[in-house]
């Protein structure tokens, strides 16, 4: 399981530790979501958001965190990062070139140039939504800051699997977001019922994805 951020990773680890301590009393379940595209190709970097129908099931909010988006080899790393409102983001330029980092996203708009080795000041993220960040010098550099207030979020790994551990029994809306989903449309959502008797649950999402903008437009193909 790949952990997107240290903060969340620690919380999950803590939760796992709790479940391990009181498995019978909590009766929690693990959720495994598989995100696939056409022909079941694994879709990495999809963000799974779970919202319980019963708000009381939500775990307590974690403390605001600051996450760093590195710029290495003219690539934003990671491609998708999940934030909670109140989190901050820092852009670090690990390349030998300048990077002109910008965003026109309604959730957070900014623009600055990072010289090699420079890190930006932390940018506070308050509004939810996907913030597409690009480099005006390198069109193929793009990263998404996904700001979500959902109690559980998870990011799919290279194998397309996103896992959420120790879900309390109950009903959930499970939505998925991905940068290549068609913009302007509601994210695909499924409801999930976690039964106390079942220790594991699985979900599958099949997404129709647009081309990966990191690769730039397909210069050899223009559709008539």
């Amino acid at each position, binding site marked *: 399981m790949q952990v997107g951020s240290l903060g969340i990773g620690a919380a999950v680890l803590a939760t796992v530790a709790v479940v391990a301590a009181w498995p019978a009393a909590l009766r929690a379940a693990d959720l495994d979501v598989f995100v696939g595209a056409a022909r079941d190709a694994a879709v990495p970097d999809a963000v799974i958001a779970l919202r319980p129908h019963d708000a009381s099931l939500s775990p307590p909010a974690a403390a605001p965190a600051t996450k760093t988006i590195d710029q290495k080899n003219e690539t934003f790393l990671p491609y998708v990062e999940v934030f909670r409102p109140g989190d901050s983001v820092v852009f670090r330029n690990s390349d030998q070139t300048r990077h002109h980092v910008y965003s*026109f996203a309604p959730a957070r708009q900014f623009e600055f140039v990072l010289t090699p080795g420079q890190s930006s000041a932390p940018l506070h993220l308050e509004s939810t939504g996907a913030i597409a960040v*690009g480099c005006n010098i390198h069109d193929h550099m*793009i990263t998404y800051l996904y700001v979500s207030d959902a109690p559980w979020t998870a990011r799919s790994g290279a194998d397309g699997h996103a896992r959420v551990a120790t879900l309390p029994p109950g009903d959930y809306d499970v939505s998925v977001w991905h940068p290549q989903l068609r913009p302007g449309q509601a994210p695909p959502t499924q409801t999930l019922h976690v039964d106390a008797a079942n220790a594991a649950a699985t979900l599958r999402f099949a997404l129709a994805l*647009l081309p990966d903008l990191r690769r730039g437009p*397909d210069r050899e*193909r223009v559709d008539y």
Partner: protein
Amino acid sequence: MSFRVRLASFLVVTLALLQIATALLVYGVTRRELVQQGEQQLVLASRAFARQLDDVSLRVADNVQVLTLDFALRSAIAQRDRNTVVSALRNHGRRVGATRMLLVGLDGTIEADSAESGAPLAKFPFPDLAESALEHPSAAVVAWDGRAYWIVVVPVTAPALIGLIAAAIPVDDPFLARLQEESTLPNAIELAAQTAPGKWEVLAHGNGTIALTPSVTSRSEGLPSKPVSLAVNGREYVALATRLESSDASAPIVAVLGYSIDDALRPYRSVASAWGVLLALGLVFGLVAALIIARGVSRPIEALAATARRIAAGDYSAPAPIAQRDEVGELALTLAHMARAIGEREERIRFQAGHDAITGLPNRVAAEAAIERELAQRDGAHGALLLITLARLPEITKTVGHGISDRVMRDAAARLRQAGGAALLARATDTEFLLWLPHVQEADAIALAFRALDALDEPYSEAEFRIDAAPAVGVALCPQHGTQFSPLLQRAEVALFAALNAEEPVLVYDPASDPHRPERLALMTDLRDAIERDELALHYQPKLHLPNGRIDGAEGLARWVHPRQGAIPPDRFIPLAEETGNMRRLTRWVLAAGIARARAWQRGGRHLRLALNLSVRDLEDAELPQRVGELLTAHGVAPDRLLLEITESAVMHKPEAAIRVLRRLADQGIELALDDFGVGQSSFAYLRRLPVRELKIDKSFLLKLAEGAEDRTIVRSIVELGHRLGYSVTAEGVSDQATLDYLTQIGCDHAQGFFIARPMTAEALDAFLAAAEPATP
């Protein structure tokens, strides 16, 4: 049509046909090739056209894509700065050659429009293009407001997808023209949109001037996706319609590509005209060559034909030699040989036709022609025709054969040629030569005749034979005996026969003695008429029975009194009748008249035996005995009342036949007498075979009986001998009493003669008998 013309025509026509066929073949092949080439080109061109559109799409999309990356534009879009966006769109639109640029929201709404006029659009009219542009730039040719546009839609990212920019680039005539110029596209390209089912509207055409679309789209088979041939305004095209991928929202659009066969053929026009000139030159050259060749062939043939005509006309002189070592030359040589051979053969035939094969002399026909020719040339001049015969030649032939007689004739011919000198010598018949002496009178002719005889006098001798051919000559003179060959020959022949008969060596024709004179023929006709008209009369000369001094018989003698010539003696008309075949007719009349008279005598109680003469011709008549018998029966006359007299010579002519006839007469009881007995050649031995009862001593013995003791002895011997042999004997020609007395004295049975009575008519005989009756009781 002459051979030459035909040959020339054949060559020229062959040449022309060959050329035309080649031209047609080349034209067909070229044209087919061009059409195929055109079709291939069209297919390639349609692909190329599509590729070019792709390229343009890429380029335009690239350009537009680059525009979208403009940070200012992106920020203006992202920040919804509409005015800035519109101005930027206009600016960028000019850069890529778009006449209209649109900013399309992700939901399809028009967020900005570079168009300065016209109704503002709410929705992007080609949603399918916008849809696919979300994934990658899309482009399509669309029909939009009656024009063709190149619509390129590219996504705008900032850096996420925030909208679409659509560029509308007009696909107009200059656009197509540019495409054509930049490539090998055919010069006829049209873009057409289907405005209604089956109805197509041309949106753009390149620099082509021909409207192909109506012809292409009006085809009942539909749009030709493969190359088809069609005619537009009388010009031929290969055309192809390529459906262009368009927006679903647009009317269907096709690109019509045409390939002009005529244009493709244009470079070949000059080739064709050059070809035509070559063909004409070839024809002229061929014609001249053909005429020359044909002349080379036909001239000798014409010469040969002329030669053949000459040969046909009888000119066998050698034809002009043809110095050709081919079939014609050989033919000419053969023709020359043939002409020579024909000439020789004709010469031989002509010689044979005009010459006698044995003696080599001209034959009668040739001689006649030559003599007639000469006679015609010199009218009425003198000449003599000598006819020389070897009288014994038939006998020689029969005795020793034709071989020797031929050699005899050849020898005689040689001798006569020598004797005759320049005279024309010919062989007239098997046994006769003919010698024509021009310009000679009778004396010279006779002299030459004797010379000829002298030449033939020496007998022909060969081995053991010595042959005396007994030559004789008859001469006819021109103009006395005729002025033409035919009468001259005939008269010479008469003279020759006369000479043979007279045993004279040479005789000149004598008209008086000619038995074949024309007047004899007239007399003949008269005699026949006389017999038919019963103009002849039968006179009777009484026969005196010497022992009792009574007339007991009479000899009937025919008499003819010609209406104009008067009495004609029997020795004139009887030979005539014998020679002209009228003897039997005469005999029949004599028998009829005589037997009728005998009946009258029988009825009148006169015991007279009628004696009638039979000719040599009668003895050849096998029907004679029957006819005589019938006459006797018809008249009721006893056979023994008739005595038929025949001459010795008549019997000797054809003895066997004569004896048969005589036997049959004798068998009927008819008495037979041998007339003119004593001068013939018959022997008694022969006589014994004849059924004769009576001998009539020839009157030559009796005429001078009174003076000649010899004759008396002969007569008496005949009488005695006759009696001893059982014949009764009659003496005729009794002309005096002494003779009668002597006959009575030697016991002759009957006497007849002027002294007793001349021949007389039947009435006179009656009177004569009546007068004599009383004297003899």
